[in-house]
């Protein structure tokens, strides 16, 4: 890989060639130096402890001149600089430890600073001393060679987004040195300007892509941006060329390995080519090559590319030890992002460690993990609260927004959805999330065709955006177009093997079409993925109910109920689960339990005629005629056309008329109760005895009546556990 002009190898990051990174001798090992002022770009990066020999690029030995420069500027207090320093200042300084702040997770090649030479002692010293110390070592820019000065100029211009300046100076340097690294930086400038073609041209005309692996990467990236996917793939290779090479243990410079970046890019190209299988492998490779490649990891998870088992395999195979003392934190962070279907204790543990040990309670990634968990458990109220907490800080967090939109939909919060989608459309017209929000709004409003239009727009923008696919399929369901819905769901199932939802919905569709065996097959597939989803358990219960296997149905319903029990009326799912459970009990002849279920639902949700009708039926079966009649009346009050209620009501009334008026008849008992207080009046005595009752106690009678005609089943009995 090395040529006369040394470019970084695939195991390095671009830190190796940053003009700002101080070169220390290979023999010096890793040395840290304190940075007196949390400097311009605000980050320390571990120095390029490279196996590459020193090159003329960085003649200054001890301290990056940029530091000096920025410190000067900071006296001028330009707003830009102030912003950089805003969070830093002395407190940042004080908090720095030996390996304190360096930026392994920052993929950019541009955020470079010097590292510290001095160690802990300096950290403990006061600020003044730092400055004194620093001023001893101040570099004079004039010490540098002219090319070096130009490089600094170019770099600073790029940092401050003066692309014209950077372009001209970069061009100048390149003409002077013909160094591929300088070509890379020039191309980088082009890239940042958005003139990808020029970057590609530059790299190709000088055939730098063969010379420098970095240039090759950049060229491929530019081609990718230009949507020339095949060409990009040609350049970058359709598999990892370094695969066979023994991976070097540990990363040299703390940045992200180029090899990993290339794998990521390859993966993204495959995604665009809709080759999910390959893309998945590439992403996996990317993160396996360098654990710091969070983006690849994120792709894998947010696009639901991995099944739960695969996710865990992947995380277990990752080499977190590259991260030194951040190892545990990052491991926990990664684990907390995994799918919440299984291994919940481990995820919970990871979250605990993050929030307790590292005080990252309010970190967005940590919160996101929690939000996903809540969403998965259908605890929408809490989920929405948390989402709002995140969005308050970061209004357009595109990771949280889709879940938030789902929550809003589940609460039918039209107004909020309206505002949100407008805001998004204004600010992110190119994001699939925006159009997902718009579509969801229309779905809320019941305008299915519009909703479908926007769902499809969203999924065209990013075919790997799962939410839109599902929404798109839902619109067909809403219109009763089973076939289309099925095909949309199965596409989603193919694209997103990591989520059980498509299978669940497929199963629901088949269930609706009364194809029970197919439905069951799909449910079982979903069940293998996520055995805890109450909705899924409910659907399974329904299948068995339809097959008249009520025992099994009860088993599943009860599990579903257990899973969702604590949420109560918060979700519609809870209500349907309890209703289903009630019907199962009814079929099994456990009348009291069934009544309990129905009554719970009636207490907490909008009543329906069928529900009252079922309740009435149960009362009728239990010979509680009065209750039954009342229930049927209520059913008919809600829906006058309810045939079943009508019939049953007539039956009940007939039975009522048939009832013999003996001393157990409610009418007689209540009249006896009222008679008692006046019993000392002699003429009433006659009346009472004439009814054939000689002595009684009103209280016991009242109790008898209560047991006879009212339902007292609910008090001690709970739904069977």
């Amino acid at each position, binding site marked *: 890989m090395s040529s006369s002009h040394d470019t970084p190898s695939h195991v390095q990051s671009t830190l190796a060639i940053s003009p700002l990174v101080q070169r220390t001798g290979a023999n010096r090992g890793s040395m840290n130096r304190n940075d007196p002022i949390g400097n311009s770009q605000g980050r320390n990066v571990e120095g390029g402890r490279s196996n590459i020999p020193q090159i003329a690029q960085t003649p200054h030995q001890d301290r990056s001149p940029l530091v000096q420069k920025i410190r000067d500027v900071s006296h001028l207090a330009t707003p830009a600089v102030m912003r950089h320093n805003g969070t830093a200042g002395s407190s940042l300084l004080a908090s720095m430890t030996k390996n304190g702040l360096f930026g392994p997770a920052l993929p950019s090649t541009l955020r470079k600073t010097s590292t510290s030479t001095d160690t802990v002692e300096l950290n403990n010293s006061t600020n003044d001393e730092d400055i004194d110390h620093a001023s001893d070592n101040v570099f004079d820019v004039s010490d540098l060679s002219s090319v070096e000065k130009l490089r600094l100029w170019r770099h600073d211009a790029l940092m401050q987004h003066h692309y014209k300046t950077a372009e001209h100076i970069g061009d100048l340097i390149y003409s002077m040195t013909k160094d591929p690294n300088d070509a890379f930086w020039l191309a980088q400038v082009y890239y940042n300007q958005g003139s990808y073609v020029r970057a590609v041209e530059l790299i190709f005309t000088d055939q730098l892509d063969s010379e420098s692996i970095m240039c090759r990467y950049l060229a491929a990236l530019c081609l990718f941006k230009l949507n020339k996917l095949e060409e990009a793939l040609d350049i970058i290779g359709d598999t990892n060329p370094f695969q066979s090479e023994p991976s070097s243990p540990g990363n040299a410079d703390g940045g992200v390995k180029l090899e990993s970046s290339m794998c990521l890019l390859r993966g993204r190209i495959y995604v665009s080519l809709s080759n999910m299988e390959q893309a998945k492998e590439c992403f996996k490779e990317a993160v396996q090559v360098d654990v710091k490649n969070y983006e690849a990891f994120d792709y894998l998870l947010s696009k639901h590319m991995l099944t739960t088992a695969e996710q865990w395999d992947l995380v277990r195979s990752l080499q977190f030890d590259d991260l030194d003392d951040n190892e545990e934190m990052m491991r926990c962070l990664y684990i907390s992002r995994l799918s919440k279907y299984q291994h919940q204790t481990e995820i919970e543990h990871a979250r605990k460690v993050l929030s307790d040990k590292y005080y990252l309670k309010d970190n967005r990634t940590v919160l996101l993990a929690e939000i996903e968990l809540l969403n998965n458990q259908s605890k929408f109220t809490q989920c929405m609260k948390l989402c709002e907490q995140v969005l308050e800080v970061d209004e357009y967090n595109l990771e949280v927004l889709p879940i938030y939109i789902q929550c809003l939909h589940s609460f039918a919060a039209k107004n909020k959805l309206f505002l949100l989608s407008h805001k998004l459309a204004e600010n992110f017209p190119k994001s699939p999330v925006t159009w997902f929000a718009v579509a969801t709004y229309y779905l809320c409003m019941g305008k299915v065709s519009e909703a479908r239009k926007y769902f499809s727009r969203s999924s065209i923008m990013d075919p790997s955006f799962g939410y839109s696919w599902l929404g798109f399929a839902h619109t067909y369901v809403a219109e009763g177009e089973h076939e289309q819905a099925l095909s949309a769901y199965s596409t989603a199932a193919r694209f997103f093997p990591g989520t059980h939802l498509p299978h669940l919905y497929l199963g629901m569709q088949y269930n609706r079409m009364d194809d029970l065996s197919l439905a069951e097959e799909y449910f079982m597939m979903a069940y293998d993925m996520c055995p805890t989803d109450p909705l899924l358990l409910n659907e399974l219960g329904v299948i068995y109910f339809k097959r008249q296997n009520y025992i099994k149905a009860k088993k599943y319903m009860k599990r579903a109920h257990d899973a969702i029990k604590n949420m*109560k009326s918060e979700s519609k799912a809870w209500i349907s689960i309890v209703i289903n459970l009630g019907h199962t009990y009814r079929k099994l002849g456990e009348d009291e339990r069934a009544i309990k279920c129905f009554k719970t639902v009636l*207490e*907490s949700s909008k009543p329906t005629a069928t529900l009252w009708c079922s309740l009435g039926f149960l009362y009728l079966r239990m010979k509680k005629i009065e209750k039954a009649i009342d229930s049927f009346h*209520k059913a008919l009050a809600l829906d006058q056309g309810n045939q079943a209620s009508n019939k049953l009501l007539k039956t009940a009334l007939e039975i*009522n008329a048939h009832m013999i008026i003996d001393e157990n008849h409610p009418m007689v008992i209540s009249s006896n*109760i009222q008679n008692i207080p006046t019993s000392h009046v002699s003429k009433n005595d006659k009346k009472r005895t004439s009814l054939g009752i000689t002595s009684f106690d009103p209280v016991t009678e009242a109790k008898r009546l209560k047991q006879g005609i009212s339902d007292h089943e609910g008090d001690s009995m709970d739904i069977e556990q």
Partner: protein
Amino acid sequence: MERLVFEDVQQQLRQSSTDLSRWKLFQSSKWSAEALMGMRPTDSEDSLSADMSLATDGDDESPLKKRQILSSRCVLLDFCDNENQSETLPDVIPLMGKELDLYLLASSMFDCKEYDRCAFFLKDTSHDGLEFLYLYSRYLLWDKKVTESTEDVMIKDPEIFSADLSESLQAAEYGNDAEGKCRSGISLSNRDVDVGNGEKINLPKLHHEITDFLEKNKSLSKLGTALLMYLLGIIQKKQGVPSGAMSYFLKSLKLYPYNWTCWCELLSCISRTDESILLLKYLNDNFSIVKENGIIHEHLMLRFFKLAVFKEFGGDFDKYIEELGEIMKVFPNFSFLRAQHALINYKYMDYANAEIVFDELVTMDPYRLDDLDTYSNVLYVLQKPYKLAYLAQYAANVDIYRPETCCIIANYFSSKQQHEKSILYFRRALMLDKSYTHAWILMGHEFIEMKNSHAAIECYRRASDVNPRDFQAWYGLGQAYEVLDKHSFALYYFQKACALKPLDKRMWFASASCYEKLDKTVQAIKCFQRSSQLSGEQDISILYRLAKLHEKNNDVSSCKHYMAKCVELDEVKKAQQIDEIGKAKLWLAKHEFKHRNYSDAYNYANGVIHGTSQEIEEARAILAECRKRIDI
């Protein structure tokens, strides 16, 4: 001793009135204050009144404790003083520092009816009183929004109404609500209300919030817990779980008995006499102390409650009057008691006395419109249209926007046979208060007058939904269905009415006729028997129908027994001629003839004077026949 109790009561009423108004339970607070003012002046009038003039200004210090001049101070500041004594006064809600400020803010917003704002500012409180205010304002918010968003066919504008009604009520015979919407009470209770930002309020949620709060905070003040329990009860009641609501109300009352609305709500949770008996037994066990000498000392509030229960469910009348008299002695100027007296007279159909008591009530507390609608009923029944007109004018002058006023006016129009206007005013009353049972029932009566059974059924149904304790609604339903020839329906409702009023012969009679129509002879006989037992004097028509039923049942001897009874009774009374007598005599004559008792047959047949020509012909034939046979 007696005096101590008396002062104690005074003290507690005073305290409760302040407490309750602080926590925005205005009706209860008003009741307490009225009771306080209605109390008999004590012997030590002078000294006490001096105390009271200071104390009623808002302070709750017991007159027995160290007296301070507090009148100039603000109530809440006093409360802060009291805070120091919170160990000794665990039943008040302490308000300190920031909480006090927050309370002032929330309270003023609440008073301005800005419930959203009130709730918003109280969102994160952990103070029990403020938490109650928070939840209460949210509940009221929910209630307000639900009521506003509900459109009710029955109380719409008359033009739309009549058009709507004719369509929608045609199918109403099975008790269907027009378009199935907004059947009061049921479908309302589980609505979600959007607070504007997507957050929903619904009752189950509120319920959970309160129970969570109560679980989390164990060491709450008595009053705070009582208030929250009360709110829980109201929510449960709205959710349609009266048994749950009842237990919450009872818990609340145990902690804080001076909340009269809570007692009323408790009463509204029971719908049958048997339940009232059980409840009273429970209350007797829990709210009265047995003194050493064996005298049971009942809690004052329980005594009031018992009066209310009696009014609703009946019971021992003499005992009731005695009790009422005793309480009246303590609270001679308490208009509530006077009203109760009047109402009970009305209920027992002693209209003349009711009128007298109402007159007293009006002079005593002229601007109290509560219960005057019943007064108008009394006047209506007594047919005093001029007095009724005066009352209507008077009430309208006091406050035209009170449901009672509208009801009085409606009654006036009804007495003038202007049913449409009457309905208009009833509808107005219902617009102001949808849960006004009285107006629903009376409107139902008006519809019956106008021969609109379907609309009447709807009205009665609403009434029974709101207040299932009122037999009138059930009875009305029964009658309306009877008109429609739906006897099994009618029977069911008559049964319900009968269960509420088992000592009323009309109920039994109505049920019996339904049984008769349904060909359930045995049941019909039982009901007729019961009915005739209950009527003081025998009724010939009932006896005749009984006889007929027995005949149908092939029980000739019983039939004969009743027929004979009919004739006997006729001989005793000798009053008016009724068709049944002739028929009975004819039947007996035929019967005796069959059994060859020709002389008896002759006697009976001889008595048939009135009746259709056919009957008389038959009687003559028998007579002729008998003469022949006797001659032979």
